[in-house]
């Protein structure tokens, strides 16, 4: 199950917890949501049982931020694979 987040509001994390339950979970951060992937923030995903966290490299670069080491910066080709191939469910929050 892949969650696509494009907003930095923390409510998304609670929605992710409720919707994700015990399923295997990955997260793709785009736009302002990359702020959730900063050092000091990204640990919340581990607490929610998220296995992998990806972030749009362009969104991070546009905001001049450095992502936490646990977050993989990806381009659009990889994002397309994540969304179209790698997960049987994709949920945009």
């Amino acid at each position, binding site marked *: 199950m892949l969650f696509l987040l494009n907003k930095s509001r923390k409510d998304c994390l609670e929605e992710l917890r409720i919707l994700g339950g015990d399923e295997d979970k990955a997260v793709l951060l785009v736009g302002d949501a990359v702020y959730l992937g900063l050092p000091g923030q990204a640990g919340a995903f581990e607490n929610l049982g998220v296995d992998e966290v990806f972030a*749009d490299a362009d969104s991070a670069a*546009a905001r001049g931020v450095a992502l936490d080491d646990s977050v993989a910066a990806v381009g659009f080709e990889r994002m*397309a694979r994540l969304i*179209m191939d790698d997960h049987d469910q*994709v949920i*945009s929050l």
Partner: protein
Amino acid sequence: MSRTLTIALLSGSTENDDAAFVLKLARAVLARGDAVNVFLYGNGCNLANKPVPFDGRSPISDALRQHMDGYVLAGAIEELAAAGAKFATCHTTEYSRGTEGLAYLDGVAWGDVGNSYTRFLMSTDVLLTIGR
């Protein structure tokens, strides 16, 4: 086997980077050989129309114009449509914004939720809703 991504885009072009992101993702998905539908709903319908030429001197500075040009997406939408992406807008959300009746970009179709969007959904493998 080709799959189909449908994106309901609820943001316009300049209030955030949702629209720019959607078009870049659409380009990447098309490049894989998959199909893309984009339904322009809510403020997303503001992306549907032909730009109106402005005669005269705009007071926009060169620096601001350069920044804003990255969010002028008419050309990108027409390129994607020419490459096979399907775009439909919601005439009801256009009506409430006073834009119903304006000329559409090449490749953007008049539409509605009950018909256009539903037809998109019937052939969709992955649905994303991008907005605020």
